[in-house]
C-alpha cells in the first residue's frame, strides 16, 4: 500500500487517479501509523512553501516524514512536495523545509526574459545514469508548473530541464525522491515514472 500524505495539498486527487490507473492501491492519510507502515509514501503539493510546511507542522507530520526517510521507506515528493524535501526555501521569507536532501529552494531568475511560472512540457536530460529513473526519463518531456526551483549539489540531481538555468526535474538521495514536474500530468512518461517508483517500493 502506498500512502499519499493528506495535508490539503491540492493535486492529491489527480495523483491518486494516476496510481489507480496503474492498478496500485493508495490511501490518503495523515495518520503516522499508516504512513510508517506503508510500502511507499507520496508527498504531493501545489501552492506556497510556507503554507504547506505550516500544515505539515500542524498535523505533526514533519517528524513522521523524517522517520520515513530514516526507515528507508521510499518517499516521493511531487512539485511543491519535492521542494519541501530540501533544507529551506526563500519563498515569502526564509522557511525551513524537511531537510531530507541538502539544498535550498529559490525563485527562478526573472531577468532571463523567460515567462514565470515555468509552465509547460520541458525535456529531461539525465545527469545520474545509475538512477532507477534514468532510462524512463532520458530525453523525455514532462509537464512543469512552478516559479521556484531547487539548488543543490550535483550528486542529488537525476535530471535537469533547461529553462535559462538548469532546473532539477528529478532529485534523489538514498530512498528519498523528488519530481519538480507533475508525473500525474505527464502522459505515458509520467505514468512510467510512477510505475518505476512503485517497483522501488517492492524492495
Amino acid at each position, binding site marked *: 500500500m502506498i500512502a499519499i500524505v493528506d495535508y490539503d495539498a491540492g493535486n492529491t486527487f489527480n495523483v491518486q487517479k494516476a496510481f*489507480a490507473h496503474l492498478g496500485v492501491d493508495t490511501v490518503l492519510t495523515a495518520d503516522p501509523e499508516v504512513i510508517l507502515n506503508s510500502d511507499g509514501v507520496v508527498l504531493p503539493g501545489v501552492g506556497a512553501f510556507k503554507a504547506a510546511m505550516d500544515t505539515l507542522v500542524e498535523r505533526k507530520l514533519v517528524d513522521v516524514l523524517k522517520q520515513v526517510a530514516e526507515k528507508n521507506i521510499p518517499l516521493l515528493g511531487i512539485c511543491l512536495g519535492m521542494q519541501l524535501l530540501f533544507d529551506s526555501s526563500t519563498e515569502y521569507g526564509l522557511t525551513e523545509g524537511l531537510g531530507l536532501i541538502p539544498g535550498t529552494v529559490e525563485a527562478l531568475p526573472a531577468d532571463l526574459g523567460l515567462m514565470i*511560472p515555468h509552465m509547460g512540457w520541458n525535456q529531461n536530460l539525465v545527469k545520474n545514469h545509475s538512477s532507477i529513473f534514468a532510462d524512463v526519463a532520458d530525453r523525455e518531456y514532462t509537464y512543469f508548473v512552478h516559479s521556484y526551483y531547487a539548488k543543490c549539489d550535483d550528486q542529488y540531481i537525476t535530471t535537469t530541464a533547461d529553462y535559462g538555468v538548469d532546473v532539477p526535474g528529478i532529485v534523489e538521495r538514498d530512498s528519498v525522491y523528488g519530481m519538480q514536474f507533475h508525473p500525474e500530468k505527464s502522459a505515458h512518461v509520467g505514468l512510467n515514472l510512477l510505475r518505476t517508483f512503485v517497483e522501488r517500493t517492492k524492495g
Partner: protein
Amino acid sequence: MLAKRIIPCLDVDNGRVKKGVNFINLVDVGDPVQISASYEEQGADELVFLDITATTERRDTFKDVVMDISKEVFMPLTVGGGIRTVEDMQHLLQAGADKISLNSAALANPELIREGAQKFGNQCIVVAIDVKTDPVTGRCYAYTHGGRKKTERLAIEWAKEAVSLGAGELLVTSMDKDGTKSGFDIDLYRELGDAVDVPIIASGGAGTLQHFVDVFEQTKVTGALAASIFHFGEMTISDVKSELRKHGISVR
C-alpha cells in the same frame, strides 16, 4: 526549452463531443473519454473542453465528464463554458481539471479573473477571447456568445486587462478565421505577443500542416488549438508534430 503545444478542443454537449459552426448544426463526434484517449495516444500536449450544453442540469453532467476523463487521460486539462463563480471553478478543479477558461463571464465581470487567480493561482486561470473584426470600423473587438454578440472592448485592450487581473494564459480565437481553413491570424497574434507576456494559444483557421509552422515561426504563441481538422481525421497531431520538427520547432 519548452515544447510548443498542440491542443485539440472538444465541445461537449450533454456528455458527448459535438461539432458545429458557431454552436449550430451540431454533429455528434463521439464519446469524450475515448476521443481524449486517442488524442493522448497521438501526442496531444493538453486538452481543452468547452461545455456547450444548453440545459439546466448541464453543470453536473459536465463535471462527470471531466471526472471520467481525468481518470483515463494524464495531461493538463482546461475546462470552460458557463463558468460564472469561484464555486463553479472549484467544482471543476475538484473533478480533475487543471485550468479554468473564462470568456463571457469575465467580460461581464472582470473581477472574476482576479478572484479565481487569487484563490487558485494565475497558472490556473485562462482567459478565452473571441476576436472579430468590426466590418464598419475594421477594428478588432472581443465578442461573446460564440461570436454573435459584440462587446465594446478592443481585443488587445481586453487582453492586457485580463493579464493585469491575473490571467496566466490567453486562448485567443480569431472568429474571422475560424472555419475558413485559411491559416491562423498571424497579424493578431503578433500584436498580442507584443502586448502581453503570458503564454498565448492561437485558435481558428488551421487547415494545413504549414499553417501550424507559420503561426509558430511568425508569432510568439506557445500553443495552437484546433478542433474539426483533428476530429474528422484530416490530419493527426502526430502529422502536425513531425512537420513542426522538420522545421526545427521544438515539440514533445
